[in-house]
């Protein structure tokens, strides 16, 4: 059996989604901002050419954006999520096994495609995805996932590759390894890159020449896996079912600083409901939860406050009627008057499968009632939207909610937001 993987990566995904429904922005610089319009999280090629870096805070580049006529969007995850789903649907026509690695990247298993011209297959993907969905992609193909990732990166950078690079010839693989800086290798990162440079390891190729004992010593066993993959020995298989998360965190910065406990309670209650919903979705329960509350990190001395409180539950639960009151109690315990708060959130831990719960002997026997109620809530919210059924404490004002100055319409998921044609 020969292994072969393709990594299909959407080009400047969020910016491409925005541009699809605004074709007049073709070849114009576009940036997309993070939640709360904090910093740049996506750039079109034209915006990259202006020197705008990922993660730059909005306030630092406001002048530049205005001067160069950069089109600025707040992030619209409803739109990006639907476009991502469409891309994956198309990709699943090109391989029976697709791993959705992130919102804009998928691995395809092309192993045992014996009588298929792989370069032609990869080119077909490269051509078809933008035609069908409007989202341009780059395709990298190689014997291991780590090499496919590397091929994809070069496919985007190299003019000659033009978006498709198949790395199967040993000479090509060697050239690609030499052309890739060690920090750009999947799973290595900048921190290790610095350390490796002191040993004369600068490119991916340098690393593959090091003995296993060296790699194990300096990069741990995980690093050894990466090196083997770079040498063409597959160690990382497709993950078809995403592993259950070991802890789930739901938090948001407020749209404006908040001082009143009741406003913060609205936010935390909403996060707790989200968090419980996520737990139920992966069919697990949490044994404990932590609530945190923070002011801005950039205040003067005396104006800053950070605190958190962990609550262990009587028995693991995924019920909002258990998690939300516990979270609110923890919040009230750490809330101090007189601060301008910026963020609150909830983290649930001690996650176990819902089927393996040890009931507390003091439990009021409400588990069955809660399970039925939660199922009803889940199906209601799935059909009518998450805000359909709320608790009183979640409020209606939403003073805490995000500021999204320039969020685009949800063109593909809301009837009121469809594009209009004359």
């Amino acid at each position, binding site marked *: 059996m020969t292994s072969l993987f393709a990594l299909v990566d959407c080009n400047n995904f969020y910016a491409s989604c925005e541009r699809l429904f605004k074709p007049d922005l073709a070849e114009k610089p576009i940036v997309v901002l993070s939640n709360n319009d904090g910093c740049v999280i996506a750039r079109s090629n034209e915006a990259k050419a202006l020197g705008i870096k990922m993660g730059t805070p909005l306030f630092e580049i406001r002048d530049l954006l205005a001067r160069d006529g950069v089109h600025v969007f707040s992030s619209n995850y409803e739109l990006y999520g639907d476009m991502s789903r469409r891309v994956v649907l198309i990709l699943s026509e090109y391989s029976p096994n697709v791993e959705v690695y992130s919102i804009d990247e998928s691995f395809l298993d092309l192993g045992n495609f014996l009588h298929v011209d792989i370069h032609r297959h990869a080119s077909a993907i490269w051509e078809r995805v933008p035609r069908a969905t409007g989202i341009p992609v780059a395709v990298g193909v190689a014997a291991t996932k780590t090499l496919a990732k590397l091929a994809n990166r070069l496919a985007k950078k190299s003019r000659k590759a033009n978006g498709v690079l198949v790395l199967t010839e040993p000479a090509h693989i060697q050239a690609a390894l030499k052309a890739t800086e060690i920090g750009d290798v999947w799973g290595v990162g900048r921190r290790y890159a610095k350390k490796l440079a002191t040993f004369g390891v600068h490119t991916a190729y340098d690393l593959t020449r090091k003995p296993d004992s060296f790699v194990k010593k300096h990069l741990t066993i995980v690093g050894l896996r990466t090196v083997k993959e770079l040498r063409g020995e597959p160690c990382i298989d497709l993950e078809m079912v995403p592993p259950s998360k070991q802890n789930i965190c739901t938090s948001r910065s407020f749209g404006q600083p908040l001082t009143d406990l009741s406003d913060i309670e609205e936010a935390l209650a909403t996060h707790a409901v989200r968090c419980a919903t996520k737990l139920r979705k992966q069919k697990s329960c949490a044994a404990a939860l932590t609530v945190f509350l923070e002011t801005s990190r950039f205040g003067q001395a005396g104006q800053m406050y950070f605190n958190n409180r962990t609550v262990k539950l009587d028995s693991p639960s995924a019920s909002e009627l258990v998690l939300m009151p516990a979270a609110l109690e923890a919040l009230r315990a750490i809330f101090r008057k007189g601060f301008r708060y910026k963020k609150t959130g909830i983290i649930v831990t001690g996650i176990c499968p819902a089927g393996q719960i040890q009931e507390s002997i003091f439990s009021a026997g409400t588990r069955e009632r809660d399970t039925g109620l939660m199922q009803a809530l889940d199906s209601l919210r799935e*059909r009518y939207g998450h805000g359909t059924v709320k608790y009183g404490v979640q409020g209606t004002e939403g003073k805490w909610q995000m500021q999204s100055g320039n969020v685009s319409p949800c063109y593909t998921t809301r009837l009121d937001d469809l594009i209009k044609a004359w």
Partner: protein
Amino acid sequence: MEAAIIPLHPIEEQRFLIIIDQGNSLPLFTTTVQAGFPSPATDYSAEPIDLNTYSSAHPASTFLVEVVGESMVKAGIMPKDLAIVNRDLKPKDGNIVLAFVDGGFTIKRLRLEKDATYLVAETESDSFPPIRVDSPEDGMFWGVVVGIHRKY
């Protein structure tokens, strides 16, 4: 079967959203079953008619667009109709297409003539002269209109 009965009134809008989504469907009729007697129809059960698949077999490349204006009324496309647009088709002469021209989306009949490509309105009114497209700057093809959804 009961779980598949979708009440029509409270979700008037969401009901449309499922047109481009797989796996949801609108049963055309429902029936109750008397306890105790197996239904004679059990062996003949079939999936309810699925308007999504009827509208387009390609949910990944199908988009809904709201029609504004009367430039295509003679082609049976009325204001407020929802046009069903498939991006994944090569536009052919005579197709009704969605294009982006002059800063806006437009639905017109595509005419591939020897000298150029034209986007032609179909209406009694003469306020919509054919749009000549010579270069990508003049206009951009977006998708082929494969159907119309109209609600009275």
